[in-house]
């Protein structure tokens, strides 16, 4: 039962998605069924969000209670979860759900701090704490690329040397000064590089990988739909 029901659900969901692809969504129910299944996915995801919050609070909260190593960081995580969530969920006015009771206790002028609108606590934390931190992490990628490139481009073998030479040519072409330099040898040189390296070798290899991956994904989907592959449930 524990295995059979998920396999049946997986089969029916997959089958509906496949069949729906071939039918007119405007004139048949089966054509619209694809959207219905995707809506169910969204609804189920919403329920599981509670599980996520519960997990993050339990894991970090336990570390704080036990005073394990680096517990202040875990405390910061738990505080951050509630600092973002609670003000966003509170009623913004007396017309909101539970607003009348809430604003009989607190002044109505506090309403602009709650919810997710402009000027709210959530909005402030998102714009001035969350976004800058995300952007900082993303910006660090430049330095990580430099260190990975240094390791990848060391000319230790014939293959690595070829990679290095190709990379130098592509990088030279991608920067304006390098492009201007290459044009000295002919106006078409950058276009040739684009045609032969990027649109030629590069695209050919990428398409090979994509075709292989697409077949692999289709094969795996079929195995999941037919219940041959049950490892994603921990079975088999």
């Amino acid at each position, binding site marked *: 039962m524990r295995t059979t029901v998920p396999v049946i659900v997986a089969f029916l969901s997959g089958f509906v998605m496949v069949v729906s692809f071939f039918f007119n969504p405007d004139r048949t129910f089966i054509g619209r069924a694809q959207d219905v299944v995707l809506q169910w996915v969204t609804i189920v995801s919403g329920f*599981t969000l509670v599980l996520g919050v519960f997990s993050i609070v339990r894991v970090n909260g336990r570390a704080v209670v036990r005073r394990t190593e680096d517990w202040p960081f875990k405390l910061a995580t738990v505080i951050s979860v509630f600092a973002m969530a609670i003000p966003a969920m509170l009623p913004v006015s007396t017309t909101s759900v539970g607003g009348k009771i809430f604003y009989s206790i607190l002044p109505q002028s506090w309403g602009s701090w709650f919810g997710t609108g402009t000027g709210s606590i959530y909005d402030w934390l998102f714009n001035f704490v969350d976004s800058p931190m995300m952007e900082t992490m993303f910006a660090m990628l430049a330095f990580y690329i430099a260190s990975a490139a240094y390791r990848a481009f060391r000319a230790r073998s014939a293959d690595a040397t070829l990679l290095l030479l190709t990379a130098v040519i592509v990088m030279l072409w991608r920067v304006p000064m390098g492009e201007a330099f290459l044009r000295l040898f002919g106006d078409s040189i950058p276009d040739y590089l684009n045609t032969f390296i990027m649109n030629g070798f590069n695209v050919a290899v990428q398409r090979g990988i994509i075709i292989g991956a697409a077949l692999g994904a289709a*094969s795996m989907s079929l195995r999941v739909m037919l219940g041959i592959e049950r490892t994603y449930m921990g079975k088999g």
Partner: protein
Amino acid sequence: MTDPLFYVFYSVTHYSLNSSGKTFLLALGFCLYFSFFSFAQSPDSLNQHPPILTLIGDDTLDIDEGDTLIIAVSSIDLDGTIPLLTAENLMDSAAFIDSLNGQGCLVFAPGFEQEGNYEILLIASDGVTADSVTVAITVNDITVFRTSRIAVLVFMLIFSGAVLLYTNWAKKGKTLFVRRIPGIDAVEEAVGRATEMGKPVLFIPGISDIDDIETIAGLAILGRVARITAQYDTPLYVPVRYPMILAAGQEVVEQAYLEVGRHDAYDKDTVRYVAGEQFAFTATVNGMMMRDKPAANIYMGAFFAESLLLAETGNAAGSIQIAGTARPEQLPFFIAACDYTLMGEELYAASSYLSHEPLLLGGLKGQDFVKVILVAVIILGVILMSFDIGGWFKHLFVVP
């Protein structure tokens, strides 16, 4: 190169070098000329060449009512200006967007009353001269069944037939050869190393949600890894980005511990939700890597911009690293920073390969059979198109 400024700059740069062997400085001089002095050219000299408009894809397209068609165009102007892109003869439900960087796209989403043939003129202009391309679009009427998608149905039937045929042969006991995949073989070795060192194994099933097949593949491999860690009694950490993966991952790991008879060793927090934001997740996992120094990091699933941030941090922490993804744009990062990388289809083959079950290996063989057919079709297509007689053949594979 008729600009007097060019000759002045060339002469100054050349004579200031006063000896041979300064080619680099001369080249630098040239680059500076092109970078900083080209603006001094007169407006007439800037418009020597008309812009070139390139359609990315075919100029004859089919689409079903209710579908959306996106046509991208790219333009260049050898004089250095950015051409202005426009479209003429636009019908209802169609819009053209000029990104103002020489790129643009036409979006057309015909309604269910727009059956017919349309021709749209796309124009790139630099203000003086222009280039244009005409795109012919046929909107197919759809009734109940989408006959224009019949090619997909045929391919699906061939593919499913091949997979089921090989699976059936495997069930009957036929021996199937599957080539060695070193990256998958290394998984057991990595967990063994972690056990010897008394350090944990970190497994990341990608950062996509459960509706991504790559995530399903990642979870299937997680089940195999969890069995090995359960047998060796090695700690396993599985940070996840989506609550759905949390629920599915916990189920997978618990079942794996149960099946090897080590349910007592299962910790519910083995799989933990850490953050919903992409880079918050990355920061948390990087922190785990630097603090706990896992002996092995296994990345299996869909990864995006965070792939290198994770893999480089793991490399710096001295962990043995095995990655697998079907995203071609992330593969170079993993190859540069990891010890083993599963590329594309190898990710989907991993769980079958690790299980050594003939039934699952049958699926892989069926997939290989279809790949042979596809290679033959591609070669035939290349030959026909090279002789300019492959229009009908190409049309067989066009799916609106």
